């Protein structure tokens, strides 16, 4: 009940994880949107409905597990991504939690992200016992 505001690093992990759910739902469409070199958006509502929209199409999926991790009073998230350049995906994010907002910008390596199941995340998942916390930590270290 008395949780404090998630900070930038915690929210960046949620961004990464929500995109990961998009890949799990429709890897082909998500890859087309993310790698189109065109801007795209991601919105998430309070009930966890996420919508990824780009020139290549639109994908709606459930990200409620992630929104619950953000906080009981999560309201809305709006993310604007610039097209991928030199494998780097840059974005600007705004999260509405209660009646306060948290905004930040970030970027990550798309190639590493797409290939993650032969890389960082899968290795972490296989080797580590405390899967969730340690994967979050591994993601955090790979983000800027």
């Amino acid at each position, binding site marked *: 009940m008395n949780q404090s*505001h998630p900070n930038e690093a915690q929210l960046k992990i949620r961004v990464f994880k929500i995109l990961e759910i998009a890949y799990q739902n429709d890897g082909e469409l998500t890859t087309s949107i993310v790698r189109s070199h065109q801007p795209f958006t991601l919105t998430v509502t309070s009930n966890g409905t996420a919508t990824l929209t780009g020139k290549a199409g639109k994908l709606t999926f459930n990200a409620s597990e992630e929104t619950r991790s953000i906080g009981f*009073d999560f309201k809305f998230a709006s993310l604007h991504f*610039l097209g991928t350049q030199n494998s780097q995906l840059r974005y*600007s994010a705004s999260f509405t939690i209660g*009646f*306060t*907002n*948290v*905004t930040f910008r970030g970027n990550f390596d798309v190639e590493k992200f797409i290939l993650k199941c032969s890389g960082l995340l899968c290795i972490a998942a296989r080797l580590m016992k405390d899967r969730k916390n340690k994967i979050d930590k591994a993601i955090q270290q790979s983000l800027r």
Partner: protein
Amino acid sequence: MKNLPYIFILLISFAAQAKDNELYSAFKQYSDITKHAETVLPLIPFYSEKQYQSFELYFKHENLKEGIDTLFSRLQFPSVLHNEKSHNEIINKDSGCLVVSGLSQEKKRVSVYLGFVRSYKWLIDYINIEYINDSDDYLNTPICDNEALMKKRMENWQ
């Protein structure tokens, strides 16, 4: 008597400065009451009504409708600014926007944008905590609109 015009100018400049800082003063008043929040936090179930009344002095009523027991920790947003560096504000009749910038506890640059509405006093209607990217600067002009702020930041990135 010869110095009278200078004294007059000095008084006017003090008055203008005080007026310029009225949103910041409202923020500081609120910030001061949250400084002891950590000691009060475990007592919330017993103090909720009292706390609610005190928060009502600083926030637009609609923003508190979810109940103080769920909102309390979120209302400690001033603690994000561990080391305050600057502030700037704009007032337009019955609304205003203040930005207070500084460093977070993790030494990350951060700005808090606060939208105010004029009631019997200035009440907080909007809060945005912006963690500032390494390639960006603090904004001199406050922006109390998420989408407009994101758009401005993205323009710098193009």
